[in-house]
């Protein structure tokens, strides 16, 4: 692992959906300014873990978390912790692109507007910078006022990425299988964007596609049935896995 300071640390972290335990006392630390790829078969708790990191799991009343999840030294599950501020610092990109029913421009400035940014110049700058960072600017710069829902799936996903990037307090980007429904070109653009973005942010990428993890992730974690099986530098994990289950999964013997 790297010498970088840990951005997120979880200790004995478990998540329950009703009686079902979907994460089993996870302990790991996620270093800053790197891309962590999380791989594992479906139902292994990858998405649950990701949603726990910006507390979207709070929305379902039967879900609860145990243990510690610490961002920059603060426990994000502490009763006094400000969830709205957490979600502004920890952005999330979903598997299905969710363009809000607004124009492209309004989609991007949605986050900043919520934080009270009113200045038109600043908003326009944010839109341009975020769309460029998401590799979408050239395709939409002439039609920023058209509905975001008119874009193709791949473009919508990059629009969603731009929307996350427009948040000025953003520090961590969580991506939940962001390319699962996308064409190869959009996928390549998002992957390229991520490798550039890690200079500014800490990135956690959940993916069903082990090749994608191998391509873009600096570190990789393998989840199975809610447990962290193995966690290490991507190169090492894919070439000389320490656990037989990891080996089976990355070589495609199951999952």
């Amino acid at each position, binding site marked *: 692992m790297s010498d970088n300071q840990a951005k997120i640390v979880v200790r004995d972290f478990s998540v329950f959906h009703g009686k079902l335990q979907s994460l089993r006392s996870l302990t790991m630390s996620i270093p800053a300014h790197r891309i962590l790829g999380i791989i594992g078969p479906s139902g292994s708790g990858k998405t649950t873990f990701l949603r726990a990191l910006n507390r979207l799991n709070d*929305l379902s009343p039967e879900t609860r978390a145990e243990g510690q999840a610490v961002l920059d030294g603060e426990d994000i599950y502490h009763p006094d912790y400000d969830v709205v501020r957490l*979600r502004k610092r920890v952005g999330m990109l*979903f598997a299905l692109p*969710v363009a809000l*029913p607004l124009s492209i421009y309004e989609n991007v400035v949605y986050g900043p507007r919520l934080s009270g940014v009113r200045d038109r110049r600043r908003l326009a700058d944010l839109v341009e910078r975020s769309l460029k960072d998401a590799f979408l600017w050239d395709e939409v710069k002439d039609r920023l006022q058209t509905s975001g*829902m008119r874009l193709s799936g791949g473009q919508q996903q990059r629009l*969603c990425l731009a929307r996350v990037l427009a948040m000025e307090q953003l520090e961590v980007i969580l991506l939940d299988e962001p390319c699962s429904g996308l064409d190869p070109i959009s996928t390549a653009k998002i992957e390229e964007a991520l490798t550039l973005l890690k200079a500014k942010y800490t990135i956690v990428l959940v993916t069903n596609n082990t090749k994608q993890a191998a391509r873009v992730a600096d570190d990789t974690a393998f989840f199975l049935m809610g447990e962290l099986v193995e966690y290490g530098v991507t190169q090492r994990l894919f070439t000389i896995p320490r656990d037989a289950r990891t080996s089976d999964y990355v070589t495609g013997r199951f999952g």
Partner: protein
Amino acid sequence: MLVAFSALASLLLIAVFILKEGVPFFFKYGLGHFLFGLTWDPQAGQFGIYPMIVASLWVTLGAMAIGAPLGIAGAIFLNEFVPRSVLRVVKPTIELLAGIPSVVYGFLGVMVLAPFIRAHLGGPGLSILAASVILGIMVLPTVISISTDAIGAVPNSYREGALALGATRWQSVTLVTVKAARSGIIASIILAMGRALGETMAVIMVVGNAVKVPHSALDSARTLTANIALEMGYATGLHREALFATGVVLFVVIMLLNAMATSAIKAGGRRA
């Protein structure tokens, strides 16, 4: 098939019948005189429905001013801030309100509302305000039921998308959910307007029925529907035709409102 066509056929029959009885009057009396005439005096052969058009508009607008915000707020509350189990009980209960006969709403207006207005705000009590309040309550089931469905149809991913960007619960409701459900909400308001404009019995009981152009919400007035219902029993000849012509005016306005509702729903369907 047969049922569907018989519904269509009866709609056509009604349209043809009203038009046949009412339209000739437009030519005999003059459309301008009819719509903008200030005096309604059948004995003297004066058939100006302008005061009633104004009264109908005020009553309808008043009803919407009361019913629409309440209904939409109720729909938002039921969808976003209350557990599903409560929604499942409350929504059918609200829809039950639609089944109460309008005469009963009229009773409520005459016995409770009109005396209250007379005592606290002045005027005769039986007034545009009383009719607006009663109609505002009567349209609540329409607004709540359709708006609730529209808001409920907004995908959860929109809410999560907004919350994941650091929106508070309230911001995600006002900025995303309501916008996404906009066409359904607009449709509910337009349908409610049609209902308010067409309501007769409850309005007759509380609006006072004086034929004059109202100058304040506390004035008594007569709506188009009330005019037809009150006088049809004894009207003959030209008077009778004038009432049918009033029906034509109502019919056209309600058709327009329905067309607007349909196009609002369609526009929403295209966007989604």
